[in-house]
C-alpha cells in the first residue's frame, strides 16, 4: 500500500493544531503533516516527493504571509507532481475575486469556511481523498476501510467491467 501525504497549512498555530486534531483519524493510512508557512509546506512536499510520497490532499488557509493560499494552490496545480492533489481551502476571508480565480484555474476542489465543524471537515476530506485514490491508485481494496467504502467498491466494480473481468 502506497504512502500518501495529507498536508495542512495555516500560519496560526492554534488553528493548525485543531485541523490536525480533526484529521487525526486519517493518520493510520496517510502521512499527516502540518506546516506553518507556505515556504515550509513547499519544502515538505519536495522532501516527500524524493521519498516518492505523493501529496494526496492539501488543506490550506488563505491569508498567510508571503503568499496567499489561493496563489499557492494555483502554483501547486501547475506543477505535475501536485496537479492531481485534492485542494481544499479553509478560510474565513477569501474574497470573491480570489476564489473565482482559483476555481477558474481548477485549483480549488473544496472550500470550507471558518469556523468549521469537525465532522464536516472530516467528511469533506474523506470524499476528496476517495476521489484522489480512485483516480490514482490501482489497488483500491485496502483503502475501502479508511475512505468512502461504498464509492471505493463501486469503483472497483466499475474497473472490473472496464477491464472486462
Amino acid at each position, binding site marked *: 500500500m502506497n504512502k500518501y501525504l495529507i498536508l495542512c497549512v495555516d*500560519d*496560526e*498555530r*492554534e*488553528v*493548525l*493544531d*485543531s*485541523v490536525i*486534531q*480533526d484529521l487525526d483519524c486519517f*493518520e493510520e493510512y496517510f*502521512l499527516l*503533516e*502540518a*506546516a*506553518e508557512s507556505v515556504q*515550509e509546506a513547499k*519544502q*515538505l512536499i519536495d522532501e516527500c516527493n524524493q521519498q516518492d510520497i505523493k501529496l494526496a490532499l492539501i488543506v490550506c488557509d488563505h*491569508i*498567510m*504571509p*508571503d503568499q*496567499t493560499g489561493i496563489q499557492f494552490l494555483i502554483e501547486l496545480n501547475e506543477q505535475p507532481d501536485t496537479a492531481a492533489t485534492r485542494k481544499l481551502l479553509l478560510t*474565513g*476571508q477569501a474574497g470573491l475575486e480570489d476564489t473565482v480565480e482559483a476555481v477558474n484555474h481548477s485549483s480549488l476542489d473544496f472550500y470550507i*469556511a*471558518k*469556523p*468549521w*465543524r*469537525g465532522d464536516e471537515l472530516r467528511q469533506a476530506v474523506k470524499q476528496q481523498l476517495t476521489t484522489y485514490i480512485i483516480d490514482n491508485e490501482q489497488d483500491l481494496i485496502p483503502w475501502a476501510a479508511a475512505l468512502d467504502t461504498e464509492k471505493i467498491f463501486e469503483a472497483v466494480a466499475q474497473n472490473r467491467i472496464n477491464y472486462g473481468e
Partner: protein
Amino acid sequence: MNQFSVLCLDSNPISIEQLRRELSPFAAKFDLHSAESIEEANAALTFCTERKQTVALVIASHHESFNGADFLIQLDKNQHTKTARKILISCGQDIQAILSAVNDGRLDHCLTKPLQDNLVHKTAQKELTTFIIENDKENLLSYSQILDQHRLLRTHIDQKMRHYREGFITDHHSLSDQQLVEQVTTALLEFFAKEDETRAKRTYSSDHLLTKEGEENQFLWFITKGTVALYKKDEIGVQREVVRHSQGNIVGGMSFVTGEPSFSTAVTLTETEVIKLDRKVFAKVMHSDTSLLPLFTNLLLRHFNRRLQRSINTKLELQKTLESLEDAHQQLIEREKMAMLGQLVSGVAHELNNPIAAILRGTETLTNKIQTLIDERSIDQVGDDGIAVLQLGLTQRPKSTAAERDLANQVNQKIDNRRVAKKLVKLGLEQQDRWYDETKQSPDATLERLERLEEYYLAGSTLRSIGVCAGRIADMVKSLKGYARPNDERFHVVDIHEGIEDTLVIFENKLKFHTVERDYNELPQLPCLPIALQQVWTNLISNAIDAFPDKGLLTIRTELTQQDAQQWAVISFTDNGCGIPEEIIENIFSLNFTTKKEGNFGLGIGLSVCQQIIHQHGGKILVESCRDKFTQMSVWLPVSQTQLTARSHE
C-alpha cells in the same frame, strides 16, 4: 375780501378816524373794521367769523369809561381770535389794566396817548409782519409792499434754506426708485437737449468696457437704457460677475465719489444708452438746477444703499449656507468614520474567525475526550506521565512544526516507527530512552500507550490554545471598541504607542503579507483624544498598505524633537510604496481630493479628517514622498514642559 382783517376799537370817533387813516396802507391785504363800542366790536368779530376771515390785529383803546383791555383778554380765550396780535392804546393812567392785558391777554404792544404821528402805522406794521410770518408762511413775499420788507425777506430766505436742508433727503420719500430715476433722467436729458458739448448722451454697443478694476476712473455713467455687468477678480484671478445694472443704475459711482481706482470692471452686455458725466460737467448740471442736486444725491444714496442691502442679504445667505456646509461637513466626517468602521469591522470579523474556529474545535475535542480522561482506568494506565504531559500541554508553547518534524525524523531513525516518533516528540518524551526500548520490544502497545498519553497532552494544549485564542479575540475587540468614539470625546493623557499598537492589531490580516518595523523611542504621556488619534493612525496605516508594493515595509518611528522652542512628539509612518506624484502632493489634505476608487478604505477624505484632528491637538501633519520609493507621513504633536517634567518625576 381779504383773508385777514384788522379791528380798531375806540369810543372816540375822532380817534377812530385817526387810526383808520394810519392803517389805510394795509387795506390792500387786510380788511379794516372799526367799532365804537364793545357790542359793535363783538358784532364785527362775529361778522369775520361768519366770513371765515381771520383777525390779524386788534387795536383797542382803554380809559376809565371804556374797558378795551378786557376785550383784548377775552380775544385770547377765543379760538378764532387767539392768533390775533393785540395792541392796547392807553391813556397812561390805568397801569393795572395794562398789566392784566399783558398777563391774561398776552398783550403784544402798548401805546400811550397822545399818539405821535405814524406811530400806530409803524406799530401795526411790526405786529402784522409778525402775524404774517407766523400765519401765512407760504405768501410772505406778497406782503412785502405794505409790511416790513426786510424782515419778510430774511424770514423767507431762512425758511427756504431750512426747507431745502430739511427736505434734502425726506422730500423724496414718497418717490419710488422708478419715479426717482425717471425724474433724474428727465432732468438730465432736458439739460443735455439744450447743449451737449461733451457728448454726455451716448450709446455704446455691447461688450464696451466702461471701467477696469484697479484703474483710475474720471466718469460717472448714468444708464438710461440697456444692461451693464460688473465683474471682480477673486483671489485666484477668476473674473466673477458681481451685479448687473440697468436703467437708472449708476456705473463708476464709487470711484467718482472717492477718487479711488475702480472697484470693479464694468462691461456693457447689450447696446446701452448712458449719460456720461465727468466732474466738470457734473458740477455744471447741478448748478443749472438746484432741485437736481438733492434729487441726484438721493439717487446716488439709494443706489449705494440698495447695493449695500443686497450685499447684506447676500452675506446673510452666505452665513446660512456656511452653517449648512458646516453641518454637511460634520455629517461627512461622521460618515467617513462610519465607512471606515464598517470596513474595519468586516475585516476584523473575518480575522476573528481564526481564533473562534480554534476555540470551537478545541471545545469539541475536549468534549469528546473528557469522558475517557476522567475515567479511573485511563488515569491508572497513564499514571504520572499523564499528569506530566497534561502540564506540558497547558504551559508550553508548542515547537514549530518544522522543528517537531526534524526531531521526529531523528527519533524515527533510531526506532524506525514514524508514528511513535512523532508522538514522542509531540509529547516531549523523545529524551526518555525507556520509550525507545519499549518501542523496540512491543511497538503496538507503546503506540497505544502514547495515544492514551496524547489525549492528556491534548486536553492541556487545547485549554492553552483556547486561552490564547480568547486573548486574541479580546485584543481585537478592544482595538475595535476604540473606534466607537462619542462626538464629544475628551482629552486624556495616554501613551501614544498603545493606540498605534491597537490599530496594528486591526490591520493584522492585511499586514500579514508585509513587514512592520517599529522604531519606538520614549515619549511622555500626552493629553490627546485617543480615539480621534486612532482614526488618524488607521488612515495613515491604511494608506501605506494601499501604496505597498508586493513586499511592503512600514516603518513606524516615534521620537521627541525640538523645533521652534517647542518640544514635539513626532510619529512618522514611512512606507516603501508608490509615492505621491509631486503635482498632487499639495492637494492630498483637501476635502474633495482622493485618488482612491470606490471600495477603497473609507470615503477617501481620510487625510483631510486626519489634518483636522491633528490641528485639534495643536499639531501638524507633514508629508514627504519620492515617486516609487517611499511616502512618509509625520504627525507632530506638541509636548508641553509640564508633561516632560511629569515624566521625569515618574
